[in-house]
């Protein structure tokens, strides 16, 4: 099933939660809406689900207008951050709920409902919990039950709002991989909201990066990481070193001193140079366009992380770089730095 969102505007009072947002989701995709809190990602998800209504715009699910229908008529599975399981029902009854409230004409008989619930509990590998109450389950188990419950109605699309947000790091990691493989198995078009970039990059096949009610970039995890479209995306995804630079006549200067990087068509004026921590080439003093004193080195695993005070700015600018451990850095050492890969964005962005 495809989803199309066109020019959605949603305001809470004076605050524009969504500012003309458009998005297309293809059949069978697993899409992540990624952004900081307040970026509008959950609002967009809720509008698609029919739990919120926009001031303007269109939402179509499989070509059909969705805004004219309420949540209960959209046939959309929704998974909440805090599970929202029915506390007075057993796990079994929770999963069966969507089947039991169907209109009489299409409602399955008891035997078929039982079979379907069993099948779903097997799918989430929790059939042994069917007689328990939600309060007797761990967070990870509750979320899997919530997912089984949402899938029971064979939804056209599956929407997950920060599904792993309330879980601890280890369980979150397990569930991520599990969700990915589950999606491969059932292949229902899915959108999940997260503020965790690692989660988005690891699980989704496309990532939508949002900020302040706007979509900053849509792309595969590789694209948004390697080719961030805006300064925001560069800063939000992955660790970045940001240096204030000045672009003029095709040259890039840091504190008046030209850097050995090409402006690549960046507009003249005050700009920001973004470099990934691991994209700084380290050399002996005097061999690169940036120079600095190593202040502190921490080594772990395959990398060493060094804090370097740049010489150009009288030691005021301190950056953190990741370097391979082929050459151990020493505190106090003067090194040169050269950005291998970088992006330049106008400073006001």
């Amino acid at each position, binding site marked *: 099933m495809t989803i199309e969102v066109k020019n959605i505007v949603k305001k809470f009072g004076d605050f524009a939660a969504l500012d003309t947002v458009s998005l297309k989701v293809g059949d069978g995709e697993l899409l992540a809406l990624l952004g900081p809190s307040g970026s509008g990602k959950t609002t967009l998800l809720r509008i698609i689900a029919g739990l919120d209504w926009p001031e303007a715009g269109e939402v179509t699910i499989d070509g059909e207008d969705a805004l004219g229908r309420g949540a209960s008529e959209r046939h959309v599975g929704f998974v909440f951050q805090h599970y929202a399981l029915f506390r007075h*029902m057993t796990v079994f009854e929770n999963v069966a709920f969507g089947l039991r409230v169907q209109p009489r004409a299409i409602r399955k008989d008891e035997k078929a409902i039982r079979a379907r619930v069993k099948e779903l509990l097997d799918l989430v590998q929790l059939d042994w919990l069917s007689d328990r109450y939600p309060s007797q389950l761990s967070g990870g188990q509750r979320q899997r039950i919530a997912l089984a419950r949402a899938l029971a109605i064979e939804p056209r699309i599956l929407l997950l709002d920060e599904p792993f947000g309330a879980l601890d790091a280890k369980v979150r990691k397990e569930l991520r991989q599990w969700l990915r493989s589950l999606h491969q198995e059932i292949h229902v078009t899915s959108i999940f909201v997260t503020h965790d970039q690692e989660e988005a990059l690891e699980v989704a096949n496309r990532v939508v990066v949002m900020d302040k009610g706007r979509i900053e970039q849509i792309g595969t995890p590789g694209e948004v990481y390697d080719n961030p479209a805006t300064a925001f995306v560069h800063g939000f995804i992955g660790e970045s070193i940001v240096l204030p630079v000045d672009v003029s006549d095709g040259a890039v200067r840091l504190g008046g001193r030209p850097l050995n990087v090409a402006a690549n068509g960046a507009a003249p004026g005050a700009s920001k140079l973004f470099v990934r921590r691991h994209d700084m080439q380290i050399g002996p003093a005097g061999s690169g366009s940036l120079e600095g004193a190593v202040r502190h080195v921490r080594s772990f695993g395959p990398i060493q992380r060094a804090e370097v005070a740049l010489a150009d700015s009288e030691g005021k600018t301190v950056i953190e770089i990741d370097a391979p451990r082929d050459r151990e850095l020493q505190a106090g050492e003067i090194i040169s730095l050269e950005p291998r890969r970088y992006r330049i964005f106008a400073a006001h962005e």
Partner: protein
Amino acid sequence: MSTAVARRSTLPGFGLTMGLTLTWLSVIVLIPLAGLFLKTFELSFDQFWGIVTSRRTLSALKISFGLSFAAACVNLVMGTVIVWALVRYRFPGRRLFDAIVDIPFALPTAVAGVALTQLFAQKGWLGAPLAELGIKVAFTPIGIFLAMVFIGIPFVVRTVQPVLIDLDPEIEEAAASLGADRWHTVFRVILPSLIPALLTGFALAFARAVGEYGSVIFIAGNLPNVSEIAPLLIVIRLSEFRYADATAIAVVMLLASFIIIFAVNRLQRWAQTRIPTH
């Protein structure tokens, strides 16, 4: 196996608080009630049985418990509706209505009784139109029922209100996204979550109605066998210096109330275990 009492505990003060609890409950509740029971022993069992099974006593008990039960049922339904409106919607005057709910708590019961009687008397604002329809409220069992509804309503509202406020709106959204219409959402999701609180509110409203005296006697008419409540019969016996008779009726009321409240409590406990609060 040593008991929890003997062991060191992370919650100190058990001895002190338990001692105070027992002393206080004894002085305030248990000793007076024991006195009540002792007083009835001035009667032989046959005398006791004769008093409690006399027509007048049985009628009074039937009126008291029957109407209290009916009033509590009405309060349960109407109280739930009021709670729903107060919690779920924002409307002008909401706080005022919220405060009005407490009036039956605060108003001296006699004042309530007089007010209701005036209102529903044959020439009262509501009594007159009702009389034209042939419905007589004041000085009939309907009047008693009305007074009992009046004094019981805050108990249901105030016990259910915090629970409904705490009810996560997401569970309703979850129900909707699973295809449930409003009917299913309310009757399968919301109300079941409120059952323990509803039962508590019901029990409190019922207990209050059974024990109510002040407001009821003004509106009741107090005809023996027709509109005479058990507490009034007790007062009458006391004024006749038939103390043992009065205590005999009181003991029956006490036991009946205790059994009913206990049953409701068990029911509530059972519902609570089905809906554990996290």
